[in-house]
Protein backbone atom coordinates (compact mmCIF):
# COMPACT_ATOMS: atom_id res chain seq x y z
CA UNK A 1 0.00 0.00 0.00
CA UNK A 2 1.26 3.47 -0.86
CA UNK A 3 2.20 5.18 2.39
CA UNK A 4 1.73 8.82 3.38
CA UNK A 5 5.06 10.59 3.38
CA UNK A 6 6.67 12.64 6.14
CA UNK A 7 9.07 15.12 4.63
CA UNK A 8 11.69 16.83 6.78
CA UNK A 9 12.42 20.37 5.65
CA UNK A 10 15.67 22.20 6.35
CA UNK A 11 15.59 25.98 6.00
CA UNK A 12 19.02 27.10 4.90
CA UNK A 13 20.68 30.48 4.65
CA UNK A 14 24.34 31.13 3.91
CA UNK A 15 25.02 27.40 3.89
CA UNK A 16 23.69 26.81 7.43
CA UNK A 17 20.38 25.42 8.66
CA UNK A 18 18.42 28.00 10.60
CA UNK A 19 15.30 27.81 12.68
CA UNK A 20 12.92 30.56 13.61
CA UNK A 21 9.29 31.53 13.54
CA UNK A 22 7.97 32.92 10.25
CA UNK A 23 11.43 33.78 8.94
CA UNK A 24 12.36 35.99 11.92
CA UNK A 25 14.61 35.47 14.94
CA UNK A 26 16.69 32.97 13.00
CA UNK A 27 19.17 30.97 15.00
CA UNK A 28 21.81 28.61 13.74
CA UNK A 29 20.69 24.98 13.91
CA UNK A 30 23.60 23.23 12.24
CA UNK A 31 25.13 21.87 9.08
CA UNK A 32 22.66 20.91 6.32
CA UNK A 33 24.47 17.72 5.28
CA UNK A 34 24.70 16.50 8.86
CA UNK A 35 21.05 17.31 9.65
CA UNK A 36 19.80 15.80 6.39
CA UNK A 37 21.60 12.57 7.19
CA UNK A 38 20.21 12.58 10.73
CA UNK A 39 16.61 13.06 9.52
CA UNK A 40 17.06 10.30 6.92
CA UNK A 41 18.42 8.03 9.62
CA UNK A 42 15.49 8.81 11.91
CA UNK A 43 12.90 7.78 9.33
CA UNK A 44 12.13 10.80 7.13
CA UNK A 45 10.71 9.69 3.78
CA UNK A 46 12.24 12.62 1.95
CA UNK A 47 14.40 15.64 2.64
CA UNK A 48 13.69 19.16 1.40
CA UNK A 49 16.36 21.80 1.57
CA UNK A 50 14.99 25.31 1.19
CA UNK A 51 17.23 28.31 0.63
CA UNK A 52 15.12 30.90 2.43
CA UNK A 53 17.16 33.95 1.47
CA UNK A 54 18.25 32.75 -1.98
CA UNK A 55 20.71 35.56 -2.62
CA UNK A 56 22.79 35.53 -5.77
CA UNK A 57 25.99 35.60 -3.68
CA UNK A 58 24.88 32.64 -1.56
CA UNK A 59 24.39 30.35 -4.59
CA UNK A 60 27.82 28.77 -4.42
CA UNK A 61 27.44 27.96 -0.72
CA UNK A 62 24.03 26.42 -1.42
CA UNK A 63 25.37 24.22 -4.21
CA UNK A 64 28.15 23.06 -1.92
CA UNK A 65 25.63 22.23 0.84
CA UNK A 66 23.47 20.32 -1.67
CA UNK A 67 26.48 18.35 -2.91
CA UNK A 68 27.56 17.41 0.61
CA UNK A 69 24.03 16.47 1.71
CA UNK A 70 23.40 14.44 -1.46
CA UNK A 71 26.52 12.37 -0.94
CA UNK A 72 25.16 11.15 2.40
CA UNK A 73 21.48 10.46 1.82
CA UNK A 74 19.84 7.75 -0.26
CA UNK A 75 16.26 8.94 -0.11
CA UNK A 76 14.58 11.55 -2.34
CA UNK A 77 16.13 14.96 -1.98
CA UNK A 78 14.40 18.19 -3.07
CA UNK A 79 16.00 21.61 -3.25
CA UNK A 80 14.11 24.89 -3.53
CA UNK A 81 14.54 28.61 -3.19
CA UNK A 82 15.81 31.01 -5.83
CA UNK A 83 15.32 28.73 -8.84
CA UNK A 84 14.73 31.38 -11.49
CA UNK A 85 15.89 29.70 -14.68
CA UNK A 86 16.57 26.29 -16.18
CA UNK A 87 20.30 26.75 -15.50
CA UNK A 88 19.63 27.21 -11.75
CA UNK A 89 17.75 23.92 -11.74
CA UNK A 90 20.44 22.19 -13.81
CA UNK A 91 23.20 23.16 -11.38
CA UNK A 92 21.17 21.82 -8.44
CA UNK A 93 20.47 18.53 -10.25
CA UNK A 94 24.18 18.30 -11.04
CA UNK A 95 24.94 18.76 -7.35
CA UNK A 96 22.69 15.81 -6.51
CA UNK A 97 19.12 17.09 -6.09
CA UNK A 98 16.40 14.66 -7.27
CA UNK A 99 13.65 17.24 -7.46
CA UNK A 100 13.51 21.00 -7.70
CA UNK A 101 10.90 23.18 -6.09
CA UNK A 102 9.91 26.34 -7.96
CA UNK A 103 7.75 29.14 -6.61
CA UNK A 104 7.91 32.87 -7.47
CA UNK A 105 9.81 32.47 -10.73
CA UNK A 106 7.19 30.03 -12.04
CA UNK A 107 4.45 32.56 -11.34
CA UNK A 108 6.36 35.22 -13.24
CA UNK A 109 7.13 32.84 -16.09
CA UNK A 110 5.06 29.62 -15.94
CA UNK A 111 6.94 28.09 -18.90
CA UNK A 112 9.79 27.42 -16.43
CA UNK A 113 7.75 24.41 -15.22
CA UNK A 114 7.53 23.01 -18.76
CA UNK A 115 11.23 23.59 -19.35
CA UNK A 116 12.47 21.82 -16.23
CA UNK A 117 9.98 18.98 -16.76
CA UNK A 118 11.01 18.50 -20.39
CA UNK A 119 14.69 18.25 -19.49
CA UNK A 120 14.60 16.38 -16.18
CA UNK A 121 11.21 14.67 -16.17
CA UNK A 122 7.89 15.78 -14.70
CA UNK A 123 8.58 13.88 -11.48
CA UNK A 124 11.50 16.25 -10.86
CA UNK A 125 9.42 19.44 -10.67
CA UNK A 126 7.55 20.47 -7.55
CA UNK A 127 5.52 23.65 -7.74
CA UNK A 128 5.42 25.36 -4.35
CA UNK A 129 2.33 27.44 -3.69
CA UNK A 130 2.09 29.86 -0.76
CA UNK A 131 -1.62 30.54 -0.23
CA UNK A 132 -3.80 32.52 2.11
CA UNK A 133 -7.57 32.23 2.40
CA UNK A 134 -9.63 34.99 0.80
CA UNK A 135 -13.11 35.69 -0.52
CA UNK A 136 -13.72 33.68 -3.66
CA UNK A 137 -10.95 31.19 -2.93
CA UNK A 138 -7.40 31.24 -1.56
CA UNK A 139 -4.94 33.71 -3.08
CA UNK A 140 -1.37 32.89 -4.07
CA UNK A 141 1.44 34.96 -2.54
CA UNK A 142 5.08 35.43 -3.52
CA UNK A 143 8.21 36.76 -1.81
CA UNK A 144 7.80 34.70 1.31
CA UNK A 145 4.12 35.53 1.63
CA UNK A 146 4.43 39.29 1.42
CA UNK A 147 3.15 40.02 -2.07
CA UNK A 148 -0.09 38.99 -3.80
CA UNK A 149 0.62 37.10 -7.00
CA UNK A 150 -2.78 37.86 -8.52
CA UNK A 151 -3.69 34.19 -8.90
CA UNK A 152 -6.14 31.91 -7.13
CA UNK A 153 -4.53 28.84 -5.57
CA UNK A 154 -6.81 26.30 -7.26
CA UNK A 155 -6.34 27.79 -10.74
CA UNK A 156 -2.59 27.96 -10.32
CA UNK A 157 -2.40 24.38 -9.04
CA UNK A 158 -4.36 23.19 -12.09
CA UNK A 159 -2.15 25.15 -14.46
CA UNK A 160 0.99 23.78 -12.78
CA UNK A 161 -0.34 20.25 -13.28
CA UNK A 162 -1.12 20.91 -16.95
CA UNK A 163 2.38 22.27 -17.47
CA UNK A 164 3.82 19.05 -16.15
CA UNK A 165 4.48 19.57 -12.44
CA UNK A 166 4.96 16.27 -10.63
CA UNK A 167 3.75 17.44 -7.23
CA UNK A 168 2.31 20.49 -5.47
CA UNK A 169 3.84 21.76 -2.23
CA UNK A 170 1.06 23.78 -0.63
CA UNK A 171 1.92 26.09 2.26
CA UNK A 172 -0.88 27.78 4.14
CA UNK A 173 0.31 31.26 5.06
CA UNK A 174 -2.56 31.43 7.57
CA UNK A 175 -1.39 28.32 9.39
CA UNK A 176 2.37 28.71 8.94
CA UNK A 177 4.16 29.32 12.22
CA UNK A 178 1.02 28.94 14.36
CA UNK A 179 1.63 25.31 15.42
CA UNK A 180 -2.18 25.09 15.54
CA UNK A 181 -2.56 22.55 12.74
CA UNK A 182 -2.49 22.40 8.95
CA UNK A 183 -5.19 24.13 6.90
CA UNK A 184 -7.08 20.92 6.11
CA UNK A 185 -9.88 22.60 4.13
CA UNK A 186 -7.49 24.34 1.76
CA UNK A 187 -5.37 21.19 1.40
CA UNK A 188 -8.44 19.08 0.60
CA UNK A 189 -9.62 21.61 -2.01
CA UNK A 190 -6.28 21.62 -3.81
CA UNK A 191 -5.93 17.85 -3.51
CA UNK A 192 -9.34 17.38 -5.15
CA UNK A 193 -8.53 19.89 -7.92
CA UNK A 194 -5.48 18.03 -9.27
CA UNK A 195 -4.48 14.44 -10.05
CA UNK A 196 -0.87 14.90 -8.89
CA UNK A 197 0.20 14.43 -5.25
CA UNK A 198 -0.15 17.33 -2.82
CA UNK A 199 2.30 17.97 0.01
CA UNK A 200 0.78 19.93 2.91
CA UNK A 201 2.90 22.45 4.76
CA UNK A 202 2.45 25.02 7.51
CA UNK A 203 1.01 24.73 10.98
CA UNK A 204 2.27 21.38 12.27
CA UNK A 205 2.37 21.33 16.05
CA UNK A 206 1.50 17.77 17.03
CA UNK A 207 1.13 14.25 15.65
CA UNK A 208 -2.65 14.72 15.69
CA UNK A 209 -2.25 17.55 13.18
CA UNK A 210 -0.58 15.16 10.74
CA UNK A 211 -3.34 12.57 11.18
CA UNK A 212 -5.88 15.29 10.47
CA UNK A 213 -4.22 16.58 7.30
CA UNK A 214 -3.93 13.03 5.93
CA UNK A 215 -7.51 12.08 6.78
CA UNK A 216 -9.47 15.29 6.36
CA UNK A 217 -7.00 17.25 4.21
CA UNK A 218 -6.45 14.35 1.76
CA UNK A 219 -2.73 15.21 1.69
CA UNK A 220 -0.39 12.70 0.08
CA UNK A 221 2.55 13.94 2.12
CA UNK A 222 3.18 16.44 4.89
CA UNK A 223 6.17 18.63 5.42
CA UNK A 224 7.58 19.51 8.79
CA UNK A 225 10.39 21.86 9.65
CA UNK A 226 10.42 23.17 13.16
CA UNK A 227 8.22 20.51 14.75
CA UNK A 228 11.29 18.39 15.41
CA UNK A 229 12.72 21.24 17.46
CA UNK A 230 9.94 20.97 20.02
CA UNK A 231 7.47 18.37 21.20
CA UNK A 232 8.11 15.45 18.89
CA UNK A 233 11.47 13.74 19.19
CA UNK A 234 11.95 12.67 15.59
CA UNK A 235 10.26 11.36 12.46
CA UNK A 236 10.17 7.79 13.75
CA UNK A 237 8.29 8.83 16.89
CA UNK A 238 5.84 10.80 14.77
CA UNK A 239 5.30 7.84 12.43
CA UNK A 240 4.60 5.48 15.31
CA UNK A 241 1.83 7.80 16.47
CA UNK A 242 0.43 8.04 12.94
CA UNK A 243 0.46 4.25 12.54
CA UNK A 244 -1.52 4.06 15.79
CA UNK A 245 -4.10 6.39 14.20
CA UNK A 246 -4.45 4.07 11.20
CA UNK A 247 -2.38 6.16 8.77
CA UNK A 248 -0.25 3.99 6.45
CA UNK A 249 3.38 5.00 6.96
CA UNK A 250 6.74 3.45 6.16
CA UNK A 251 7.64 1.48 9.29
CA UNK A 252 10.12 0.12 10.18
CA UNK A 253 12.19 2.85 8.63
Amino acid at each position, binding site marked *: *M*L*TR*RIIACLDVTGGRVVKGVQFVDLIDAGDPAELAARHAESGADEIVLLDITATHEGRGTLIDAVRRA*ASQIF*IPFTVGGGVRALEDAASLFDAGADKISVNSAALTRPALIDEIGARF*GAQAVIVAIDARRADGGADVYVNGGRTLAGRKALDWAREAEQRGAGEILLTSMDADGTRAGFDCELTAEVSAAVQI*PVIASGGAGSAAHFTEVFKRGKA*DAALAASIFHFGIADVRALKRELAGDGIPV*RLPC
Partner: protein
Amino acid sequence: MIVVVDYKAGNLASVMKALVAVGADAVSTSDPEMVRGAERIILPGVGHFQATDFLCRHGLREAIGERAAAGVPFLGICVGLQWLFQGSTEAPGVAGLGIFDGLCDRFEPGQKVPHVGWNSLAVKENSRLLASLADGTFVYFTHSYRAPVSHATVAVTEYGGPFAAAVEDGNVMGVQFHPEKSGAAGLRILRNFVELPC
Protein backbone atom coordinates in the same frame (compact mmCIF):
# COMPACT_ATOMS: atom_id res chain seq x y z
CA MET B 1 33.57 -2.67 -14.47
CA ILE B 2 29.90 -1.72 -14.22
CA VAL B 3 28.63 0.42 -17.05
CA VAL B 4 25.74 2.78 -16.35
CA VAL B 5 24.19 3.62 -19.70
CA ASP B 6 23.74 7.35 -20.21
CA TYR B 7 20.85 7.98 -22.61
CA LYS B 8 20.31 11.60 -21.59
CA ALA B 9 17.16 10.95 -19.58
CA GLY B 10 17.13 12.59 -16.18
CA ASN B 11 20.31 12.50 -14.13
CA LEU B 12 22.58 9.61 -13.40
CA ALA B 13 24.24 11.24 -10.41
CA SER B 14 22.15 9.50 -7.75
CA VAL B 15 22.66 6.03 -9.27
CA MET B 16 26.43 6.59 -9.52
CA LYS B 17 26.51 7.85 -5.93
CA ALA B 18 24.61 4.82 -4.63
CA LEU B 19 26.98 2.48 -6.50
CA VAL B 20 29.92 4.20 -4.82
CA ALA B 21 28.16 3.68 -1.48
CA VAL B 22 28.00 -0.09 -2.06
CA GLY B 23 31.66 -0.14 -3.05
CA ALA B 24 31.14 -0.70 -6.77
CA ASP B 25 33.41 0.50 -9.54
CA ALA B 26 31.12 2.12 -12.11
CA VAL B 27 31.39 4.37 -15.11
CA SER B 28 28.65 6.10 -17.09
CA THR B 29 28.80 6.22 -20.88
CA SER B 30 26.82 6.46 -24.13
CA ASP B 31 29.44 4.47 -26.03
CA PRO B 32 28.19 1.08 -27.29
CA GLU B 33 31.75 -0.29 -27.34
CA MET B 34 32.10 0.35 -23.62
CA VAL B 35 28.77 -1.40 -23.10
CA ARG B 36 30.17 -4.39 -25.01
CA GLY B 37 33.13 -4.51 -22.62
CA ALA B 38 31.05 -4.22 -19.43
CA GLU B 39 30.92 -6.87 -16.72
CA ARG B 40 27.51 -5.58 -15.66
CA ILE B 41 25.12 -3.12 -17.24
CA ILE B 42 22.72 -0.75 -15.52
CA LEU B 43 20.11 1.17 -17.49
CA PRO B 44 18.70 3.87 -15.20
CA GLY B 45 16.10 6.38 -16.19
CA VAL B 46 13.50 8.77 -15.08
CA GLY B 47 11.32 10.45 -17.60
CA HIS B 48 9.51 9.60 -20.78
CA PHE B 49 9.62 6.26 -22.63
CA GLN B 50 10.37 8.29 -25.77
CA ALA B 51 13.86 8.92 -24.34
CA THR B 52 14.76 5.25 -24.91
CA ASP B 53 14.73 6.02 -28.63
CA PHE B 54 18.25 7.34 -27.97
CA LEU B 55 19.34 3.74 -27.35
CA CYS B 56 18.22 2.76 -30.85
CA ARG B 57 19.76 5.74 -32.57
CA HIS B 58 23.16 5.30 -30.93
CA GLY B 59 23.69 1.57 -31.33
CA LEU B 60 23.13 0.97 -27.63
CA ARG B 61 20.05 -1.19 -28.07
CA GLU B 62 22.04 -3.64 -30.15
CA ALA B 63 24.99 -3.65 -27.74
CA ILE B 64 22.79 -4.18 -24.67
CA GLY B 65 20.77 -6.88 -26.45
CA GLU B 66 23.94 -8.78 -27.39
CA ARG B 67 25.44 -8.65 -23.92
CA ALA B 68 22.19 -9.52 -22.17
CA ALA B 69 21.86 -12.56 -24.47
CA ALA B 70 25.46 -13.49 -23.61
CA GLY B 71 24.59 -13.66 -19.91
CA VAL B 72 25.99 -10.34 -18.64
CA PRO B 73 24.04 -9.20 -15.56
CA PHE B 74 21.67 -6.40 -16.57
CA LEU B 75 19.59 -4.14 -14.34
CA GLY B 76 17.00 -1.71 -15.70
CA ILE B 77 15.66 0.94 -13.34
CA CYS B 78 12.25 2.65 -13.78
CA VAL B 79 11.97 3.36 -17.53
CA GLY B 80 14.92 0.94 -17.77
CA LEU B 81 12.62 -1.86 -16.55
CA GLN B 82 9.82 -0.78 -18.89
CA TRP B 83 12.22 -0.88 -21.84
CA LEU B 84 12.69 -4.64 -21.28
CA PHE B 85 9.05 -5.10 -22.38
CA GLN B 86 7.77 -4.77 -25.94
CA GLY B 87 6.97 -1.09 -25.57
CA SER B 88 4.80 1.43 -23.81
CA THR B 89 1.61 3.25 -24.69
CA GLU B 90 3.50 6.36 -23.54
CA ALA B 91 5.45 6.30 -26.82
CA PRO B 92 3.74 3.87 -29.23
CA GLY B 93 6.34 4.46 -31.97
CA VAL B 94 9.30 3.36 -29.84
CA ALA B 95 10.00 -0.36 -29.45
CA GLY B 96 11.33 -1.78 -26.21
CA LEU B 97 13.95 -4.54 -26.15
CA GLY B 98 11.14 -7.10 -25.95
CA ILE B 99 12.80 -9.61 -23.62
CA PHE B 100 9.52 -9.69 -21.69
CA ASP B 101 6.11 -9.87 -23.33
CA GLY B 102 3.51 -7.17 -22.97
CA LEU B 103 3.18 -3.42 -23.11
CA CYS B 104 3.58 -0.87 -20.33
CA ASP B 105 0.50 1.22 -19.79
CA ARG B 106 -0.66 4.24 -17.80
CA PHE B 107 -2.29 3.76 -14.39
CA GLU B 108 -6.07 3.61 -14.52
CA PRO B 109 -7.98 6.89 -14.03
CA GLY B 110 -9.06 7.42 -10.43
CA GLN B 111 -5.54 7.03 -9.07
CA LYS B 112 -3.28 9.99 -8.42
CA VAL B 113 -0.65 9.98 -11.13
CA PRO B 114 2.32 9.92 -10.91
CA HIS B 115 2.49 7.14 -8.32
CA VAL B 116 4.92 8.89 -5.97
CA GLY B 117 6.21 7.65 -2.65
CA TRP B 118 7.08 4.58 -0.63
CA ASN B 119 5.07 1.47 -1.44
CA SER B 120 5.56 -2.13 -0.36
CA LEU B 121 6.87 -5.13 -2.30
CA ALA B 122 5.26 -8.56 -2.28
CA VAL B 123 8.50 -10.47 -2.86
CA LYS B 124 8.81 -13.93 -4.46
CA GLU B 125 11.33 -16.18 -2.79
CA ASN B 126 13.31 -17.18 -5.87
CA SER B 127 14.76 -13.75 -6.67
CA ARG B 128 18.52 -13.27 -6.56
CA LEU B 129 18.14 -9.51 -6.94
CA LEU B 130 15.82 -9.24 -3.94
CA ALA B 131 17.62 -11.84 -1.82
CA SER B 132 17.35 -11.18 1.94
CA LEU B 133 14.63 -8.55 1.48
CA ALA B 134 11.64 -9.09 3.75
CA ASP B 135 8.21 -9.40 2.19
CA GLY B 136 6.52 -6.00 2.59
CA THR B 137 9.74 -3.99 2.30
CA PHE B 138 9.09 -0.36 1.34
CA VAL B 139 10.81 1.20 -1.65
CA TYR B 140 10.49 4.55 -3.41
CA PHE B 141 8.52 4.88 -6.65
CA THR B 142 7.87 7.77 -9.00
CA HIS B 143 6.21 6.86 -12.32
CA SER B 144 3.01 7.19 -14.35
CA TYR B 145 3.26 4.00 -16.45
CA ARG B 146 3.71 0.45 -15.22
CA ALA B 147 4.59 -2.99 -16.56
CA PRO B 148 2.23 -5.98 -16.50
CA VAL B 149 2.65 -8.86 -14.07
CA SER B 150 4.06 -11.96 -15.79
CA HIS B 151 6.04 -15.17 -15.13
CA ALA B 152 9.19 -13.03 -14.82
CA THR B 153 7.75 -10.85 -12.05
CA VAL B 154 9.61 -11.33 -8.76
CA ALA B 155 7.91 -8.54 -6.80
CA VAL B 156 4.43 -7.13 -7.15
CA THR B 157 3.21 -3.76 -5.87
CA GLU B 158 -0.40 -2.64 -5.59
CA TYR B 159 -1.57 0.74 -6.82
CA GLY B 160 -5.10 0.58 -8.14
CA GLY B 161 -4.24 -3.03 -9.07
CA PRO B 162 -1.05 -5.09 -9.17
CA PHE B 163 1.93 -4.21 -11.37
CA ALA B 164 5.45 -5.57 -11.84
CA ALA B 165 7.70 -3.86 -9.30
CA ALA B 166 10.63 -6.15 -10.12
CA VAL B 167 11.33 -8.61 -12.93
CA GLU B 168 14.05 -11.21 -13.22
CA ASP B 169 14.84 -13.89 -15.75
CA GLY B 170 18.33 -15.29 -15.34
CA ASN B 171 20.77 -12.42 -15.76
CA VAL B 172 18.16 -9.90 -16.93
CA MET B 173 16.58 -7.87 -14.14
CA GLY B 174 14.55 -4.72 -13.71
CA VAL B 175 13.02 -2.65 -10.95
CA GLN B 176 10.25 -0.10 -11.37
CA PHE B 177 11.21 1.68 -8.13
CA HIS B 178 14.42 3.58 -7.46
CA PRO B 179 16.88 1.51 -5.42
CA GLU B 180 19.24 4.50 -5.33
CA LYS B 181 16.51 6.43 -3.46
CA SER B 182 15.11 3.63 -1.31
CA GLY B 183 17.36 3.93 1.71
CA ALA B 184 18.97 0.82 3.19
CA ALA B 185 16.64 -1.57 1.30
CA GLY B 186 17.62 0.00 -2.01
CA LEU B 187 21.34 -0.20 -1.29
CA ARG B 188 20.85 -3.87 -0.35
CA ILE B 189 19.35 -4.53 -3.81
CA LEU B 190 22.18 -2.73 -5.59
CA ARG B 191 24.69 -4.70 -3.53
CA ASN B 192 22.91 -7.95 -4.50
CA PHE B 193 23.23 -6.92 -8.15
CA VAL B 194 26.91 -5.96 -8.02
CA GLU B 195 27.74 -9.18 -6.17
CA LEU B 196 26.04 -11.50 -8.69
CA PRO B 197 28.54 -13.90 -10.23
CA CYS B 198 29.37 -12.91 -13.80
